[in-house]
């Protein structure tokens, strides 16, 4: 099932809230898989004993995995007509196994630059309403004759 309907670029407007994407809960297996796939082998994400030894309750998710969820979201929003030209995230609260992350976004600005339509989006990743694990922004660029 596609969680997000592609929105034609021409239907975007400032302050428009974009449909959200809720990911399945993060699992320990997923953290091991992500560690291998990304090359980030910090045991904080895969070894409970290590995580406890540095004062955590147990393993926490890679911040970049959460950014990966937002990346999935932004790429789906970009659909077939736009490319992502910039994408950033500031990491907030920790994500633990069992947390289900919801990605959401709002259009902040729409401009035309050099024959391209450019949309600036504000992005939020939350593990529960109001519990942000990260905030970010993305710029989508679309050639006008494409739309």
């Amino acid at each position, binding site marked *: 099932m596609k969680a997000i309907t592609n929105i034609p670029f021409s239907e975007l407007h400032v302050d428009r809230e974009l449909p959200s994407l809720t990911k399945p809960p993060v699992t320990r297996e997923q953290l091991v898989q992500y560690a291998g796939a990304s*090359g980030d082998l910090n045991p904080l994400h895969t070894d409970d004993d290590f995580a406890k030894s540095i004062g955590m309750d147990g393993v926490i998710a890679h911040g970049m995995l959460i950014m990966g969820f937002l990346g999935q979201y932004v790429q789906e929003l970009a659909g*077939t007509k736009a490319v992502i030209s*910039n994408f950033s*995230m500031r990491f907030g609260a920790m994500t633990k196994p069992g947390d289900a992350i919801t990605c959401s976004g709002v259009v902040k600005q729409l401009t035309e630059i050099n024959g391209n339509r450019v949309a600036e989006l504000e992005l939020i990743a939350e593990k529960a309403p109001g519990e942000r694990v990260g905030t970010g922004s993305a710029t989508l660029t679309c050639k006008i004759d494409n739309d």
Partner: protein
Amino acid sequence: MDLDKSMIGIASKPYIAEVDRERVTRFAQAIGDENLLYFDETYAADTAYEDVTVPPTFLVALSSNAEFPLKLDFKRMLHGEQEFIYHQPVRIGDRLECTMAVTDVYDRVGKSGTMQFLVLDTEIKTEDGVLAAVSRNTIIYRPAKKGAE
């Protein structure tokens, strides 16, 4: 060791990162990102990317080959922010030349004392020398614990 402005400009040696299909597939699967843009050439041909590309955060997987340009205490490092600036799509099969460099060092005073920030840019170029993307990693360098080295 604390950070200081003299570190700005310190860079890794350039290193080559190959974008192979299996690695991209594993990366997308770990995230649970099933966008056809990364797998299906027919679908991708009709998008603004014009061909298969990689997930937007895949570029961090390239820097795992990097020799870190500074000797820092990894226990004091927290990943604060991450930014990607995309100039042209990365393709399966690309051999990318990556260089990681310190581009900024600054302090910010917070509740728990002065925090130091380190900005590391990885420039990612194609074999033709064209800049494909920049991956910008902002690291929070926490104060050393008292009594610890």
